[in-house]
């Protein structure tokens, strides 16, 4: 053997070994089912690193009241953005999480336009939920002293919030930046060979691979949010949750799949799981499941299904596969409640989906969230009542019921401070809608009209004004927003655990900002309870199930319901209480819904043919927003039996409480400035509350009860 052939052979060997090795690595890393998965074992998951964010505080020494076994209603907001949200900062908002919590406790904080914001009454719980992706980053882009701001792509942000820019004049510039970020979440990755790519892969942290991202800034923003939540948490008096928003959407059509995530602990992951990790909500639930395995419990809460183009409550999964039992259980394990009402409209139902419901046309927002130009959002798949019905259908075909959630409301404010009061409204996006001309409730002054048109042209947006009787108005979509809503939980005491568990049980209700309280029970022997006894509630808990729960069939007995609502002491009186029933006809396999008035104000009786209360005569004087005095009820209470009950039909029942009509914010805005309200908007609204449903489970089905957060009573009800 000569030297030459040895050299050739060894070179060949080296080349072959090298490429085999490369091939091995490639398959080991990228194949779905790698043989050895050596490299996978090197991976760690940075999103599962747990950090204890608790702060050292003196033990609260004020004696907290003992737990109430009959439970108290606590009101709060679980959807609040501060300066750490990529868009809040663009909207001119500089309120910190500390400011937000102070506001919730009743203190005054400032709107970006300079005026004061204060609650009529403090709230019981609050969670700052900034957008997880790019959390804290936009602020760093705008701060021209930060390292990251030296990159070209941060230019539009530079000193966006400098004093002279804090005026409505910059609205066009601002809204354009907002939609350009949403559209391109993953910008500026490093080249493939870069060490950061490898580090990102090894720690399952795509964010590290982006030039547009500074992981340290991101972590410190998250740590500050967590610190603030823990600092303001005051067991017995005021509850906070560490939280964030998982701002995801479908790949095409911009279907909004946003969810808020809250932690039941002073500990949390070192960073939030965001849309940069994955757009698929199923991956979020996987992450939540893994956190739960590590002892950290979380829930996620979808919102603005109305602007999801029908994608939030689809009949298929994110990738278009069929929903199966595993999917349904996973979804319900992690998403016990849905935000049904907020500033960007209400998602109870839509007039096209519930043509027989006279109250369906309530605060409808019909465009996709964040779409530019504004684009219509398909109603079907975006509203909770239809989702409940579709859930029954899915269960009917053995796919499990992924839509067995309870209801809450929240504000989604981006100023740190929710606007819940129609007569004191500042909408949600700071400079863009902080005064009446911008949000379209009063006509535009000449120079502002010109400016708006110029901006819209400069940013390539369609004309967004409308000519009406009193002049030309801004018509940028803010007229469809409103002063809503609140999350309410029935809990033993005002502590993190107690309130969090209420969400998991789905013993919750949603309001449009009003502090209505509503109790709701179902059982087979509730008529044995004395409705005038002070033990009514404890008896009802004993003999029945409450909102959020399943009622199993009891041979073919007809269930009885107790519903009891109390007015907001600062709001209008109650007009009526309704029970909304949805069911799946066990013979035809078709879903149905029906609205029953069950209790009328002022001692009026429900018409048994139409199921409607007579008019109680309450009116609103539009010239000054005063309302008819002495009409309406402070409380409404009724024992009710379903007149159309069929024991074989899967069904659900939930309560809707309606106040007497009052002025809508747009009417208040107009009359305060000497105008008539706009003729193309609702002048009045009926503030309302919705309870979580109670599901009736017929015996004829092989009791496929998905183990949810809710209580299932497999016991004798007598």
């Amino acid at each position, binding site marked *: 053997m000569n030297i030459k052939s040895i050299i050739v052979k060894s070179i060949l060997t080296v080349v072959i070994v090298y490429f085999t090795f490369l091939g091995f690595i490639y398959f080991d890393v990228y194949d779905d089912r790698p043989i050895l998965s050596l490299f996978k074992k090197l991976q760690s998951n940075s999103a599962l690193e747990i950090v204890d964010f608790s702060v050292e*505080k003196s033990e609260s020494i004020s004696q907290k009241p003992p737990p*109430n076994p009959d439970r108290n209603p606590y009101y709060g907001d679980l959807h609040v953005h501060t300066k750490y949200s990529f868009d809040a900062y663009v909207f001119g908002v500089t309120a910190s999480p500390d400011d937000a919590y102070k506001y919730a406790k009743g203190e005054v904080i400032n709107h970006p336009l300079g005026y004061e914001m204060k609650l009529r009454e403090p709230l019981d719980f609050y969670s700052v939920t900034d957008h997880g992706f790019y959390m804290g980053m936009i602020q760093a882009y705008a701060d*021209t002293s930060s390292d990251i701001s030296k990159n070209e792509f941060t230019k539009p942000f530079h000193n966006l919030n400098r004093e002279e820019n804090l005026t409505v004049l910059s609205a066009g510039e601002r809204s354009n930046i907002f939609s350009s970020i949403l559209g391109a979440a993953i910008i500026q990755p490093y080249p493939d060979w870069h060490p950061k790519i490898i580090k990102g892969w090894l720690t399952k942290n795509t964010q590290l691979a982006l030039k547009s991202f500074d992981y340290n800034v991101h972590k410190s923003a998250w740590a500050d949010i967590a610190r603030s939540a823990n600092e303001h948490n005051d067991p017995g008096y005021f509850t906070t949750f560490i939280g964030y928003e998982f701002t995801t959407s479908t790949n095409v059509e911009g279907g909004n799949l946003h969810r808020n995530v809250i932690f039941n602990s002073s500990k949390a992951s070192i960073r939030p799981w965001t849309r940069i990790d994955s757009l698929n909500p199923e991956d979020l639930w996987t992450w939540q499941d893994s956190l739960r395995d590590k002892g950290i419990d979380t829930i996620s809460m979808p919102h603005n299904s109305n602007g999801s183009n029908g994608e939030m409550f689809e009949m298929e999964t994110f990738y278009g596969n069929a929903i199966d039992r595993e999917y349904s259980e996973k979804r319900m394990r992690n998403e016990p409640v849905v935000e049904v009402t907020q500033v960007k409209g209400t998602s109870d139902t839509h007039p096209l989906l519930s043509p027989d419901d006279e109250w369906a046309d309530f605060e409808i927002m019909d465009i996709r969230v964040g779409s530019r130009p504004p684009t219509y959002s398909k109603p079907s798949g975006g509203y909770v009542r239809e989702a409940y019905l579709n859930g029954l259908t899915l269960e009917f075909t053995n796919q499990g019921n992924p839509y067995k959630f309870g209801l809450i409301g929240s504000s989604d404010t981006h100023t740190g401070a929710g606007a819940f009061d129609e007569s004191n409204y500042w909408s949600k996006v700071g400079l863009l809608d902080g005064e009446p001309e911008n949000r379209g409730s009063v006509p535009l002054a000449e120079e502002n009209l010109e400016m708006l048109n110029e901006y819209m042209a400069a940013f390539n947006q369609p004309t967004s004004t409308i000519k009406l009787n009193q002049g030309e108005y801004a018509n940028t979509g803010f007229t469809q927003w409103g002063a809503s809503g609140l999350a309410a939980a029935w809990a033993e005491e005002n502590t993190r655990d107690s309130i969090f568990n209420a969400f998991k049980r789905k013993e919750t209700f949603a309001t449009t900002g009003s502090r209505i309280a509503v*109790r709701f029970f179902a059982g087979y022997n509730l008529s044995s309870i004395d409705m*005038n006894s002070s033990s*009514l509630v404890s008896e009802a808990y004993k003999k029945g199930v409450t909102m959020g729960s399943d009622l199993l069939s009891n041979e073919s007995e007809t269930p009885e319901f107790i519903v009891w609502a109390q007015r907001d*002491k600062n709001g209008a009186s109650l007009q009526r209480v309704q029970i909304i029933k949805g069911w799946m006809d066990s013979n035809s396999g078709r879903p149905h819904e029906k609205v029953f008035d069950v209790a009328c104000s002022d001692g009026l009786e429900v018409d048994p043919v139409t199921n409607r209360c007579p008019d109680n005569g309450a009116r609103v004087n539009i010239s000054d927003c005063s309302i008819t005095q002495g009409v309406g*009820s*402070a409380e409404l209470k009724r024992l009710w039996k379903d007149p159309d009950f069929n024991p074989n039909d899967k069904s659900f029942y939930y309560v809707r409480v309606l106040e007497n009509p009052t002025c809508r914010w747009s009417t208040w805005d107009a009359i305060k400035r000497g105008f008539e309200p706009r003729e193309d908007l609702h002048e009045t609204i009926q503030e309302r509350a919705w309870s979580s449903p109670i599901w009736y489970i017929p015996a004829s089905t092989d009791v496929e009860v998905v183990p949810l957060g809710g209580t299932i009573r497999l016991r004798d009800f007598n």
Partner: protein
Amino acid sequence: MKKRVLIFLIIGLVLYYLDLSINSHQDKDIYISDQEIISLITAWVSQVGRTPNDNEIAKIINNLVEEEILYREALNLGLEKDDRIIKRRLAQKISFLKQESIKEAFTKEDVLKYFNDNKEKYFIDSVFTFTHYFFSSENKPEERSFKAYADLQNNVSIDSDPFLLGKNFVQVSFNDIKRDFGEEFALSFNAPQLNSWLKPIKSVFGYHIILITDHKDGYYPDVSEIYKTIEIDLLQDEKSKALNEYLNKIKTEYKIFINPDLKI
């Protein structure tokens, strides 16, 4: 000879000062501290995950030098003047400095003083235990409640309504009472009379006859009980105060001119 020496000396001096004034060396010296380089390298390591090689270190230093040179030349040209970004950044820097310059460790006296100045903030609300008969506004509340009040004195059983939030309230604070029943109702708890049924009180929900069985006055807690909490608040407070104090002190040295005829 001496003359020549003197002439040379003078020429030398002139040249020396000329040189000094034309090429002011101090302005063109760039000193880079070890600390600066080390901190840059540390940042590099934490980002990349390994130590930089000589080439890379040279690059880092070179970048630093170039930045410094450009910065100085910009200063020479007066580019920093009237630049909003720079003004704002400098203003931020000094505010930060003023806020950070406060000491973080407080003496007992500091904490005590802060507590005394802000006592109201730490007031522990008065707490009540009470029960009530409720007469719903849906059913002749005034008439029924006053009749019941009379009956109570005669030990006749009372026909009242259930209240949605419950009958018995244990150790609830004054604020909680306000939240659940409203301001008007809560007034009756200002001078509580224990263990006797009170005349019917009105709320937005109806009328109530209440019996307060226990009452603990509100009080100011002992400093030692809430020491940590006061410390946190004090630090927050000092930070925001530091800047204001500094501004107020310095403000008097400035004269401010604004066009009085400006039309907005």
